[in-house]
């Protein structure tokens, strides 16, 4: 291996030194139970309230509207199940869409088993949904709209502000999964006008195992995890002081670093322009409404997993579809929703860059990618037919 290039930042990110430095004192010194009365507990409680205030400032809401969770998945499950169940007397219809993250789709599937009805809107060839389509799906018994801000596989950005306005006009609770958006594009809950928004730390250099749910004051929601009064009685479990401190620091750095995403976008665009020259290759999803670091390309005639393995042998970390579903045999549900046929979906590669990536990383990817694709195509019984 001549170089190590991590190009799978949508799957997870390395933990930054800043974040480690913010967490360490919570392990070595401020390890008290934040609910305890004595000074050791109060110190921990102060770290948490400081983090909450900092994050609220970054997201444009009040500290009391931030609820820490142990993952984006927990935040998504809480938002969906909690709001659906709290509003079940009003109605049991939910509107969502096909390219949501599995944590949303599976939570909705659970709600369907409980008797809720879910409309999964389709997206266009570019992976985008219009506010008008959402509005047309609204029924008198619709109580919740759940549309992600940015997609984890193809990086497409949904018109959340406009969809939230539709939800508001119909007095329907609006939730958005912004796990992939934060740090790449501005996320301001007031500006977006959403009632709930989920985030996850490990996409922005905090560790895996911390997330949050913004819940606008007045939003009806049941608890997912009941317990001993933490998070104002809305989410049980002794608080993870260290990761909360780490998340606050990671968010600060991520929001501050957004300007640097212009550079990342230029890097991504250069990669795209070169990769597309490989024959029988297409870019999946809109290039216009897209996160700056995301590139998702389909190489005909080969299968994504073997490409990921070959790239790994060259020191490049990338992914086929989303990491969570990489072990599955199904082609990506996101690519299928775009109308891409299964055999092409199988040959897709996701490269996701972050501020850590350099021009040299891009050069190296370009140097290794085409030969790897070529090698697999030469092994493929489909390739002769395609040429």
């Amino acid at each position, binding site marked *: 291996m001549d170089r190590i290039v991590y190009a799978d930042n949508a799957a997870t990110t390395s933990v930054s030194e800043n974040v480690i430095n913010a967490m360490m004192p919570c392990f070595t010194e401020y390890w008290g139970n934040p609910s305890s009365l004595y000074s050791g507990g109060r110190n921990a409680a102060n770290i948490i309230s400081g983090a909450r205030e900092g994050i609220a400032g970054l997201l444009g809401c009040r500290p009391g509207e931030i609820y820490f969770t142990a993952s984006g998945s927990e935040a998504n499950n809480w938002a969906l199940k909690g709001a659906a169940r709290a509003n079940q007397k009003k109605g049991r219809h939910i509107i969502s869409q096909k390219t949501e993250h599995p944590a949303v789709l599976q939570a909705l599937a659970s709600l369907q088993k409980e008797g809720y009805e879910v409309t999964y809107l389709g997206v266009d060839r570019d992976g985008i949904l219009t506010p008008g389509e959402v509005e047309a799906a609204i029924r008198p018994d619709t109580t919740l709209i759940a549309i992600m801000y940015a997609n984890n596989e193809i990086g497409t950005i949904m018109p959340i502000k406009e969809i939230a306005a539709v939800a508001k006009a119909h007095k329907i609770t609006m939730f958005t999964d912004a796990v992939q958006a934060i740090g790449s594009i501005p996320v301001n809950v007031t500006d977006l006008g959403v009632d709930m928004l989920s985030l996850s730390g490990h996409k922005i250099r905090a560790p895996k195992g911390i997330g949050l749910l913004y819940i606008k004051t007045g939003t009806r929601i049941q608890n997912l995890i009941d317990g001993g009064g933490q998070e104002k009685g809305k989410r049980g479990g002794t608080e993870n002081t260290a990761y909360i401190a780490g998340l606050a620091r990671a968010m600060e750095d991520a929001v501050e670093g957004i300007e640097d995403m212009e550079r990342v976008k230029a890097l991504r665009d250069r990669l795209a322009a070169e990769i597309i020259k490989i024959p029988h290759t297409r870019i999946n999803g809109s290039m216009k409404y897209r996160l700056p670091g995301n590139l998702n390309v389909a190489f005909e005639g080969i299968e994504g*997993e073997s490409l990921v393995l070959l790239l790994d042998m060259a020191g490049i970390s990338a992914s086929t579809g989303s990491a969570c579903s990489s072990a599955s045999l199904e082609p990506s549900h996101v690519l299928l929703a775009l109308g891409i046929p299964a055999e092409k979906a199988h040959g897709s590669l996701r490269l996701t860059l972050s501020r850590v990536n350099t021009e040299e990383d891009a050069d190296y990817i370009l140097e290794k990618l085409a030969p790897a694709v070529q090698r697999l195509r030469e092994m493929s019984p489909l390739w002769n037919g395609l040429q």
Partner: protein
Amino acid sequence: MNYSTKVMDHFANPRNVGEIENADGIGEVGNATCGDIMKIFLKVQDDIITDIKFKTFGCGAAIATSSMATEMVKGKSIDDALTLTNKAVVEALGGLPPAKVHCSVLAEEAIKTAIADYYRRNGIEHDLTIGCDGCCNACGHADKHLHNQ
């Protein structure tokens, strides 16, 4: 998901990749929709598989099982080759992740399908149920394969 060193070796340096011109038997199983296609080419002389090549579209395990399975039957008699089970391929590879065992099934079926083609071309009676579309149960062998795991 973890591949064994053997699997990674056969993926990184696959044996018997390619096609055989004027092959004596060709078998293709799986389908692109499911994400795996294996195509096997046989050269047979005096009931011995003197040469074998494969082309595979599929994941790392698909390529590694193709490589291993072809190695295991190369130079063997047809009758011996027909006794190859997917379980033997999995074992020779030092194991496969559960989600990938179906690749070994494809490899077994691909070789059988190529042999059936050889029989057919030579007018030899046979009772091989050939073909596997990569979707479990479609070939009717699922029970047997599962039993082998």
